[in-house]
């Protein structure tokens, strides 16, 4: 499909699509004068809302479908479950807190700042207890990072499942965090920071989700964060304080953090043995698969974002990220991986953060098989589903970073498919 302007068959397809797409009439080529312009409209005449109407704003009602959604039958109870970020309808890279996905193991709790206590104990000189105010008195940093659930795209191991990028790739968000480096708190307690030690971090909710983090990572870029996108964390994201473990699976980003223990080995808690481990085809499981490998997906067009305008200029927009660092390149294919074109990056990729990419095309109205393929600073190339299956078999659950395919038909409708 690289040869868009080849005559003969291309021209034929373009003509066919214009008929199929029906009305492509926009404001610019309306048949007669547009009453929205020629007639006085209510909003041009009546008074709008006062400044005291909504002290904290929500999206306008026309955008009310841009919300997190869950798929009820995926889990036994909505209390221990997941919902999905509407990434199909978002642009840029920052995820607004309100629509950022949530995953709770025993429900989201209300923990007031006054009731917050953070203990550091174990292999430390001085076991300490911090209040929320203490946390805000340590030197802090700001960083944008993605947080992706290890199970994101997990259903797709079994083939194309749910029809929507919100559901195949929506267990991800990307926020600017403000927090204290974990190493600062470890130093404050006089922790044994030798690299064979581990840091076990635990939450205050009923699930008391706990994860073991090797000391090298704990001293590197882990943050004890208390703001996201400039605001207090939402309750569902661990208010008042959560852990941020850049580039590593979301389950390790312990919410409502209450305890940091320095230990001489991994605790091997429930969430790092029975869950968040992957059984390969030989029946042997992989543990400590923390890093989220490079991945990308086209968010529009996608099943929830059909092309409604017919043939002509089309913006193909998507997201790419890597737990190993910066995204350096994204390629897009319109024919299911036969030919690839280098996409334009919205801006230079931030390390371990979402990168927006675009391919601006003149769509000829013919069906497409859209794919995106990310590369990161290590030179790693996002694999196809077949490549992943060849390595891991099909009974894995987590860490599916395969290339996603959307079949876009001549009407502009997109569907989740698998290709040869």
């Amino acid at each position: 499909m690289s040869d868009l302007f080849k005559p003969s068959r291309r021209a034929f397809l373009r003509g066919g699509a214009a008929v199929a797409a029906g009305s492509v009439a926009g404001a610019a080529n309306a048949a007669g004068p547009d009453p929205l312009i020629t007639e006085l409209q209510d909003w041009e005449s009546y008074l709008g809302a006062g400044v005291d109407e909504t002290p904290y704003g929500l999206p306008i009602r026309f955008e009310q479908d841009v919300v997190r959604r869950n798929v009820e039958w995926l889990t036994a109870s909505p209390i221990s479950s997941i919902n999905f970020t509407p990434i199909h309808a978002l642009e840029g890279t920052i995820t607004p807190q309100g629509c950022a996905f949530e995953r709770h193991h025993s429900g989201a709790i209300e923990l007031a700042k006054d009731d917050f206590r953070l203990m550091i104990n174990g292999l430390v000189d001085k076991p300490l207890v911090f209040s929320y105010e203490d946390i805000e008195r340590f030197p802090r940093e700001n960083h944008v990072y993605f947080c992706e659930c290890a199970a994101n795209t997990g259903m797709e191991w079994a083939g194309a499942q749910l029809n929507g990028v919100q559901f195949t790739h929506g267990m991800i968000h990307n926020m600017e965090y403000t927090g204290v480096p974990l190493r600062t708190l470890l130093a404050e307690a006089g922790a044994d920071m030798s690299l064979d030690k581990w840091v076990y971090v635990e939450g205050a909710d009923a699930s008391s989700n706990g994860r073991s983090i090797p000391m090298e990572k704990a001293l590197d870029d882990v943050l004890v964060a208390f703001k996201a996108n400039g605001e207090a964390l939402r309750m569902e994201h661990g208010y008042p304080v959560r852990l941020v473990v850049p580039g590593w699976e979301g389950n390790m980003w312990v919410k409502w953090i209450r305890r940091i223990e320095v230990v001489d080995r991994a605790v091997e808690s429930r969430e790092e043995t029975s869950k968040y481990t992957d059984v390969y085809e030989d029946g042997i499981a992989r543990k400590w698969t923390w890093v989220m490998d490079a991945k990308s997906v086209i968010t529009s067009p996608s099943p929830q974002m059909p092309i409604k305008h017919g043939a002509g200029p089309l913006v193909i927009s998507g997201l790419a990220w890597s737990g190993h660092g910066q995204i350096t390149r994204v390629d897009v294919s319109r024919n299911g991986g036969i030919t690839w074109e280098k996409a334009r990056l919205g801006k230079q990729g931030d390390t371990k953060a979402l990168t927006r990419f675009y391919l601006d095309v003149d769509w000829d109205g013919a069906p497409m098989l859209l794919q995106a393929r990310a590369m990161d600073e290590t030179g790693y190339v996002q694999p196809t589903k077949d490549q992943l299956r060849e390595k891991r078999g099909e009974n894995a659950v987590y860490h599916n970073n395969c290339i996603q395919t959307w079949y876009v038909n001549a009407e502009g409708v997109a569907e989740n498919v698998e290709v040869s």
Partner: protein
Amino acid sequence: MSKSLSQIFLPAAGGTALAAALAITIANRDYGNDKIASLEGRVAQVEANASTAMQKARDEAQRAAELQVEFEAVQAAAAATAAMGVDLTAPAPVADAGYGLGRAAHLEEIAAWDVDVLPDGRGLPEGRGDAYWGEEVFAEKCASCHGDFAEGADNWPVLAGGFDTLANEDPVKTVGSYWPHLSTAWDYIHRSMPFGEAGTLTADETYAIVAYILYSNDLVDDDFELSHENFAAFEMHNKDGFVVDDRAELEYSQWRTEPCMDNCKPEVEVTMRSVFLVDTPVEGGTESMMNPATIEGLPSFSASGAAFIPEAAPKPVKVASAQPAAAPSDAGAELVAAGARVYRKCKSCHQIGDGAQNRTGPHLNGLFGREMGSVDGFGYSRVFQSAQEEGRVWDDAELTAFLAQPKAYMNGTKMAFSGLKKAEDLDAVIAYIKSYEN
């Protein structure tokens, strides 16, 4: 800057002196010696002037050169300042002596929170319990989700069985078949279970439940007693079934190569279409439908694109969407809608509507007028069995009282729900349940 100055000044000044000297020599032929002397004086003066001009030009050139050096110094300083920006965004400092924040943790506080158990058994409190007692505790506290035999109800985790399934397409990962350490089970159950009442189990109860789970996996006999003394010696079935992340070796080593851009394969076909179509209503949530479409009739792709443009696909058909049997009156519609929201608290255990089945709780279709404890195939607690024998029937009064305080009103019910506190929630949920007749 110095370069341009020297180019302008030096040749100009030199040229002026030379021209003046030449003019004076020519004039000398027609005048007397006194004139010569006078002219010689003037030549000397012009030469002196020229020399002064030369010197001035040299000075200015020198000054310009100095300014150039100064300029370069300023430019270098500016570049250094710009580079300093990197340092200005340096990581947060860590004070060598600490910040003196926080307070010392009390031993009692550490004891209360530091309860995690390591695979070698460190962290276990003293205690004991056998599988026989564990079965009783399990039935009371765990079975409503995990099943009487740890087989798992609905989507809740299966805790027993699954041996020799790990290499299958759908491995059954239970405590018995999958978990590598017994400490994980003890630790998790003690800290995070039962679901909704975490942290309430005693150490002895936890030992007993863990012993029962081992028994339900056929790993021990029913008289097996687990304690802090024999805990570390117990080896799990799948203790050697885990390896540390080896993606670097298996995958990264092969996937860090320049990817193909053109003619990467001759042809591509769609091999599978989405299993579920997902409807996303404006009011939130999702409705999944089976996708009726097949891969028949889809075009294959080559480097020049789709082989042909297929006919428009048929519209999907909705399946299994439960609707209220009788359309509620307009006045009641709002109450029923409010009840649907309240019912979210019930629906993880009680199904209602088309095709509703017994789950953790009995289905609730046609509840009103139904005898208590009368749904076929559901295993009721004793209190509901007695209610049925007494001929008690669900009506507004009974349901309101039960839902307000389930455990107090029907002492012994298995229903774990703590009750609805608000009268309007009770009214609404009852209206909602009523809207589903048999």
